[in-house]
């Protein structure tokens, strides 16, 4: 999570410089949703840490958790934009399954020569995903067919093609090792590992001091750099506000927030470093999250998507090309669905007909838990990411606890309902 270098929360900031303490409170209140969500995630993590007797935060399990859920979060980034723009995409699970099958066929079955190289195949698959998004988005944007219907059709179509491609119920594999690294690989330790405290062994062969813990130093360095960058950009945003004569949030609040976030990030980085380092898929995900935070918060295209979701007619009459924008949102979703499909296939090491089955619902749930509005115009990238992690930690924790899969669904459903009720209640109170 060290990649969340979003700007300082801007809401709740008044222009009056004299109102320090009041602003602190109002900043807290207006961001309650955001903080509340992160607190909920931490509470859930602590709960499972306790009920799984400490298994949850074990380095090997953290790596698993990331590898199992990254595809949900990657697709949730696209889904957030779809939902903010006032639409829905039910086809993402099927598209992911289809792309996985396509990738496997290209790498394993079809004699494509140099084109069966994992990197080439991945690029082709992302392009195909974008094309699928464009095909669906075209009907939604230019012919005003409801997205629910278009993507419901897409869900059926691409699941069908996925199964047909794999020749009925069989699976295709094994996939090349180089491709599997996307999901199960770790970043190489270019700096070299460091043994923390060399163990001192007594005559009887028992360790007296030192854990003998080996740290993945590249991971540590990346973690520290990311945290420093986070603090630097936060500070710079503050400076900029002050230089322009606007009151930023109180310094104490800023410091506490930065410290807590950094400490949490460093703790997680340390845990990864004691295992095999950062999973590649976590790095990919982190970069994408940072990119989408930037696009939604700072770029004109992001602003236009929110405006379109809030009031499409007003956006159109403000000169925004709403049709093209909708098409772009669905192309983006298609590319991310394809990436999700590649991640699933890489993790399983093979393409199976049921890959990604039902994952569209997890993705949509993550976005709604993250506070997006079904009416469009409202939702945050960080919310969707945290929502995705909440779902992931619950999946992982309940599995370790040995909760039956049936009951896991019930609990997830209740959490989704509870989160949205909390949201609506909060809004009505305000």
């Amino acid at each position, binding site marked *: 999570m060290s990649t969340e270098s979003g*700007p300082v929360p*801007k*809401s*709740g*900031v*008044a*222009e009056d410089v004299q109102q320090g303490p009041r602003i602190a409170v109002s900043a807290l209140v207006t961001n309650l949703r955001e903080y509340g969500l992160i607190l909920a995630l931490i509470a859930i993590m602590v709960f499972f840490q306790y009920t799984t007797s400490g298994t949850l935060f074990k380095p090997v399990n953290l790596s698993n958790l990331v590898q199992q859920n990254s595809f949900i979060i990657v697709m949730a980034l696209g889904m957030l934009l779809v939902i903010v723009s006032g639409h829905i995409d039910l086809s993402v699970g099927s598209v992911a399954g289809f792309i996985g099958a396509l990738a496997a066929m290209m790498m394993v079955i079809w004699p494509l020569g140099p084109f069966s190289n994992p990197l080439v195949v991945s690029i082709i698959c992302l392009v195909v995903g974008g094309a699928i998004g464009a095909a669906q988005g075209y009907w939604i944007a230019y012919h005003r067919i409801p997205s629910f219907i278009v993507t419901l059709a897409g869900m059926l179509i691409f699941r069908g093609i996925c199964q047909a491609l794999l020749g009925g119920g069989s699976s295709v594999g094994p996939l090349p090792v180089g491709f599997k690294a996307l999901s199960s690989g770790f970043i190489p330790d270019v700096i070299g590992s460091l043994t923390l405290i060399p163990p001192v062994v007594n005559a009887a062969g028992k360790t007296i001091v030192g854990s003998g813990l080996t740290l993945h130093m590249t991971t540590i360095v990346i973690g520290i750099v990311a945290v420093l960058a986070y603090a630097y950009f936060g500070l710079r*945003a503050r400076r*900029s*506000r002050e230089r*322009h004569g*606007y009151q930023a949030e109180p310094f104490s609040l800023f410091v506490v927030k930065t410290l807590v976030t950094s400490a949490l990030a460093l703790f997680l980085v340390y845990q990864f470093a004691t295992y095999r380092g950062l999973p590649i898929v976590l790095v990919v995900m982190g970069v994408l999250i940072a990119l989408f935070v930037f696009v939604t918060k*700072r*770029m*004109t*295209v992001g*602003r*236009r998507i*929110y*405006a379109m979701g*809030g*009031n499409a*007619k*007003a*956006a*159109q*009459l*403000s*000169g*925004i*090309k709403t049709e093209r924008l909708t098409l772009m949102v669905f192309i983006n979703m298609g590319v991310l669905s394809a990436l999700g499909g590649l991640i699933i296939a890489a993790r399983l090491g093979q393409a199976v007909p049921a890959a990604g089955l039902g994952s569209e619902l997890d993705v949509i749930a993550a976005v709604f838990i993250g506070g997006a*509005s079904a009416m469009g*115009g*409202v939702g945050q990238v960080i919310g969707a990411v945290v929502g995705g992690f909440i779902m992931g930690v619950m999946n992982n924790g309940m599995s370790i606890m040995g909760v039956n899969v049936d009951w896991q669904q019930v609990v997830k459903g209740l959490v989704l309902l509870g989160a949205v009720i909390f949201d609506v209640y909060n809004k009505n109170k*305000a």
Partner: protein
Amino acid sequence: MASTILEMRDITKTFPGVKALSNVNLSVEEGEIHAVVGENGAGKSTLMKVLSGVYPAGTYDGEIVYRGDECHFKGIHDSERRGIVIIHQELALVPMLSIAENIFLGNEHASYGIIDWNANETRTSALLKKVGLREDPKTLITNIGVGKQQLVEIAKALSKEVQLLILDEPTASLSEKDSQALLDLLLEFKRQGITSILISHKLNEINRVADKVTIIRDGRTIETLAKKDISEDRIITSMVGRSLDDRYPSREPDIGEVVLQVKNWSVYHPIHAERQVIKGIDIDVRKGEVVGIAGLMGAGRTEFAMSLFGRSYGRHITGEVLLNGKPIDVSSVSKAVEHGIAYVTEDRKTYGLNLIDHIKHNITLANLPGVSRHSVIDDMRELAVANDYKAKTNIRSSSVYQMTGNLSGGNQQKVVLSKWLFANPEVLILDEPTRGIDVGAKYEIYTIIARLAAEGKAIIVISSEMPELLGITDRIYVMNEGRIVGEMAASDASQEKIMRAIVRGEGKAS
């Protein structure tokens, strides 16, 4: 002698951080038409919501005495049972249901849950007759105009055996003719003994029908005037707390070269392709000039403006647009904006604002490149721009981070205006710029228009309020049934002249 039907005493209602009403008193006598006036945000609608139970008893202080009983309404059901019916500004009809279905929605003639359609329709016919609406009860709401929908709302109120009818700005979206009909209906009801509370901005209407006027300002009762004391000046003085000697700001027109010229502009209806809505219009506007377009509802003024603005209305659009003598392409909104044309909509909530976003984001929406570099928005620059326009157009809000959905109509209008001012257009088309906003805010909008003209913008104002056009424009086009039927300098124009042009135009058309 008439007795008091309703007495609201010391009503105080607070919202988090805002005191919307403080010790408001309102006393209404049986059988009168009692007008309640005040600026937008003065608390009129809040007071009516307290009365009708939208804000249930216990969420406000003070007491409501209706027909001698102290009432504690817990919801609109309670107040409707006592014959108090409120008709809101935004009509609450279901568009895809018929008139009869709407009138008896939730109140159907039914036994054991099975609806007796014959009884419903017979009763509907009787009710429609009472309100003077000649429509089949089976007609869908979506197929009748706003004026008729208003009558359906009133018929619905009658079906509930209304004794105290509350109308919240009923004529805001009606044409002159429909408004007159509605006011006549109120007078007819008065003869039948129905008491009405009329909330309105239109002082001439109040002059015409009201027996008493209560003026509210900043959540307080200022005064209640009896019929003989009612005068526009007196009401305006009380409403704004100062006397408005001049309702329109004075300006020295400095008119230059022709900026915008539209030639032989024709538009067909988007659905009924054979219907020509705009029939070959030629107009021009000069630098620093304010040009008015007068006409009745349905004359095609909005359709003309929107078709001009990036083909936002209609199809088979033909004609030529010249800017500073050169033909320009206005086939999409973004192209029109690029050429420096801006259109401020008549319906700010539906077409003008993103109501779930704050002022800052709304102001910069039409000109995001103006606050960004390489498509990255400069937050500080945007904030500075928003604060600048907030000050320039005098938007009243706690900060630019307030949701536009929570602003009063006048302030919303200023946000929409700011949005288009920031886009820095050469030609500004304002469609009903003061609809539904109060006297004080109107004056501010007029001042902004005058300032823009002085800065050399070419301005077109579409308005149904003739005094407004006469007060702020330099030249007036009169439009009727898709044609320009008259053109006159504002100095020579009068309401009668405009009406005569319309009537003559109608003769020509038929």
